[in-house]
Structures are given as structure tokens and as C-alpha cells.
């Protein structure tokens, strides 16, 4: 090997070793996978937990679908909090989560939002003039109704209220609910449908109306330990189900998980 190449090769070998050192350095505390709409509240609960017990947990937030796919491909998550039952069922069907640990953690509500400057009034009910409310060319901002939980709930609610067909061509689908929220907050879309908790976290939007709970399947965040969970992850799941965490969820606008349907 010639002289000038030698340091370069050494550097490349060092680069190969890097991921190993990183993995070794971050091996403390269980990894929790959670839906993006829980970002703010779970970080608070995690900080509380560390203060009270001295034990750390690590979070990875993302769309429920992305996280579920990662767990399916062997991600080292120990606890999963999803934004809908469908993906949890998907993992349960593949025996990737512990059935006995599965529980419905919290619930949420669906709201119609507008930019804070908008003066629009609309009552969410069957036969509401939603298309007229969008104006000439306004768009309705949703999370992707084909795949993202918030979008699926929104589609179900609009269908139940008989408004889906007239607004279907006006829908702008985002890959997660926070992006759908951003389009309304920036005034690019005159109306959007998001979770109440998202609307409360964004000062640039105003809640126009809440969807009646009967208009869509109950919004539930199921949690379960994965098959490679340890005792620390189980302890954190218990903490998440306790009263201290409950207070954090309440403050953020989450509602108690609805009773399971027969």
C-alpha cells in the first residue's frame, strides 16, 4: 500500500467500527416506540418517571405504520404505543407483542380546525355544508385517509355524516396528522381535521367544532410490550397506566380510553 492511501484506509476501518461503539454507548433504558401524536405528552411523562424512579426511558416517535413495520423487521423496541388497533392487531397476529400486556392507554377526540384568523362557523352534523365552507377552491387538510389513523377516523366520520363524497376531491392528504395541522396553521388550507390534542398544541389554529363520538370508531391508543421487553419496560408500562401519567394525559387533552367494544 502506498503512503498517502494508508491514512484513508485507516479512517475507513475506523468508520466501520463506529456503529459498534455507538450501540454499546446507548444500551441503557428500554426503547419505547410511540405514535407521533403522543410526542409532547410522553416526553413529559418520561421526564416525570425519570425524576421519580431515577430510571431513564428512550423514545422513538413516528407514524404508527412506520413504527409497526420497524418492529416487524426486528427493531429493538420494548414497548409500543400505537394510534389505532389495526396496527397493533397486525403485530399481535404475528406474535410480536405480548397479548397479556396489551391495554388501551388513552383516547382522543376528532375536531374540525381552521386558521386562527378565520371567522368560519360550522356545526358538525349530518348534512353540514362542508364543501361550501371550503369556498371556491379551498382544500380540506387531513392525514392520509388510506393509511394514517387520524385520516381513517376522519374519513369514517365524514362518511357517517354524509359529507365524504362532496369533499373527497378537495382533500389534501398528509403523511401524518401534524403535517395536516401545519397546512391549516399556515393558512394554506381553510379547514382541516385533526385530533383535539394536536389542535390544543398549535396556537395558530382554532377548533371550529368537535366531531360527535358516535360518528367514527372510538379513538384509542393501545399499548403493549414487545416480545423482547425486559422488566424495566414492563415497569414503565405500569407507570403509563397510573394516576400520575393520567394527569399528564388529561392536561394535554386526551380522554380516558373508551370501553372496549364487544
Amino acid at each position, binding site marked *: 500500500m502506498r503512503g498517502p492511501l494508508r491514512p484513508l484506509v485507516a479512517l475507513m476501518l475506523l468508520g466501520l467500527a463506529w456503529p459498534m461503539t455507538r450501540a454499546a454507548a446507548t444500551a441503557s433504558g428500554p426503547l419505547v416506540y410511540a405514535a407521533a401524536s403522543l410526542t409532547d405528552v410522553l416526553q413529559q411523562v418520561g421526564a416525570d418517571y425519570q425524576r421519580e424512579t431515577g430510571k431513564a426511558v428512550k423514545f422513538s416517535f413516528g407514524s404508527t*405504520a412506520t413504527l*409497526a413495520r420497524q418492529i416487524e423487521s426486528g427493531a429493538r423496541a420494548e414497548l409500543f404505543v400505537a394510534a389505532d388497533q389495526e396496527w397493533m392487531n397486525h403485530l399481535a397476529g404475528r406474535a410480536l407483542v405480548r397479548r397479556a400486556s396489551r391495554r388501551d392507554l388513552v383516547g382522543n377526540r376528532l375536531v374540525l380546525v381552521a386558521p386562527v384568523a378565520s371567522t368560519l362557523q360550522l356545526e358538525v352534523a349530518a348534512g353540514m355544508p362542508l364543501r361550501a365552507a371550503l369556498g371556491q377552491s379551498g382544500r380540506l387538510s387531513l392525514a*392520509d385517509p*388510506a*393509511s394514517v389513523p387520524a385520516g381513517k377516523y376522519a374519513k369514517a366520520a365524514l362518511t357517517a355524516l354524509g359529507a365524504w363524497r362532496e369533499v373527497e376531491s378537495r382533500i389534501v392528504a398528509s*403523511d401524518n396528522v401534524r403535517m395536516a395541522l401545519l397546512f391549516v396553521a399556515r393558512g*394554506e388550507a381553510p379547514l382541516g381535521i385533526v385530533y383535539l390534542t394536536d389542535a390544543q398544541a398549535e396556537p395558530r389554529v382554532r377548533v371550529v367544532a368537535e366531531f360527535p363520538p358516535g360518528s367514527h370508531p372510538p379513538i384509542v391508543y393501545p399499548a403493549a410490550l414487545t416480545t423482547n421487553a425486559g422488566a424495566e419496560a414492563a415497569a414503565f408500562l405500569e407507570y403509563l397506566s397510573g394516576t400520575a401519567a393520567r394527569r399528564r394525559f388529561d392536561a394535554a387533552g386526551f380522554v380516558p380510553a373508551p370501553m372496549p367494544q364487544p
Partner: protein
Amino acid sequence: MLSPAEWTALVASLVVGARAVVIGLPLAVATAWLLARAQFRGRALLDALVHAPLVLPPVVVGYVLLLTFGVQGPVGRWLDSVFGARLVFTSAGASLAAGVMAFPIMVRAVRLSIEAIDPGLELAARSLGAGRLDRFFSITLPLAMPGVIAAAIVGFAACLGEFGAVITFAANVPGETQTLPLAIYSALQTPGGEAAALRLALLSLSIALAALLLADWLGRRARRWTARP
């Protein structure tokens, strides 16, 4: 073989990419010429700006476009009030986002081939009395043709693959801005959507490979053509 929704995504991709290249290529050629041949103040700044999309996260590019060309942004508001044209959430907007991302790739390809031209040829034309535009169109552009063709095709392929900037600026509207990568993403987000995602992935792989092979073949042809005495 493909469902109607997948056909729609394919057609939307081709439209978005073609529009971005038709509008972007002349701009890319002009920019490449400026960077390769012209001396002016702020040249380094222009160079950096052109290359910015290459090194910025695509989400940032999409967000900057949203701030600028959104209905509430300065340029977007002007376009809306003067022409009644809206870019955000439209196919044209997807072209803008994809085109901005592919622009540095197009400029690079053209610039390299302009820089490879012997400046003596341009000087000779000048000494024979050819004006600036005349020199550009009869000497520089024909000699740079392999680079221009490569820029068009690789730029088109890059537009087909653009994800982050498009979804951030133009969202995921089937039939308008839902290009192949966005359709693949949507399919993967659906339980049991792997088969559709795999089909679409193979489809975009074949388009990209075909485009690269075509670029290579056309480039060799063009070089042979320009090499003729």
C-alpha cells in the same frame, strides 16, 4: 397488472417530471453557462445557492417552498392575486418541488460539458466576428449537447424519485401530486400493502434504469455526432 390508482400515480409522476424538466432545463443551461464561463460578482454565492438543494434535507426545501410559494407566502400570494394561480397542493407545485431538487444535478451535467469545451473554439468564433449569442448557439450549445441530454434525462429520473420536498410542499393528492414514491409510501403505511409497494418499487426501478441507459446511449451518439469533422 397495475390498479387504476397505480396507473394514476405513474401518469402523475411522468407529468410532474416532464414539466419540471421542460421548464427547468433552459434555466439549468443558462445557469451552467454563467458558472462555467462568466466572471461576475456573487458567482460563488450563485454556485452555493444552486447546490443548496443537494445538501439540504428535502423536507427543508419543501418547507422553504411552502413559506415562499404557499398562498400565504410572498410569491404565492402575488401569483394568486395576479394570475389566480396556486402552486401548493397542485401538480405544478409538485413539479416546482421536484424541479428545484433536480436543478443542481442538471446544472452540474451541463456545466461539466461546457467546461470541457476548448475555449479556443469560442475565441476563434469571436475573432471571426460572431456575437455572444451566436457563439453560444453555434459553438457552445452544440458541443455541450451530450451534457444537456444527460441533464434532461437524469433530471427527469431524479424528479420521478423526489419524495421529501414534494410531500412537504404539495402533499399527497391522488391524481395531482401523488407520484410513484408517494404512492409507494402510502402503500407501505397500509397493513398488507407490501405487494402493491413492491410492484410500484419495481416499476420505478425500471423507469429509472431505462432513463439512465437511454441517457448513456444518447450521450454516446451525441459525442460521436459532435466529434464529426
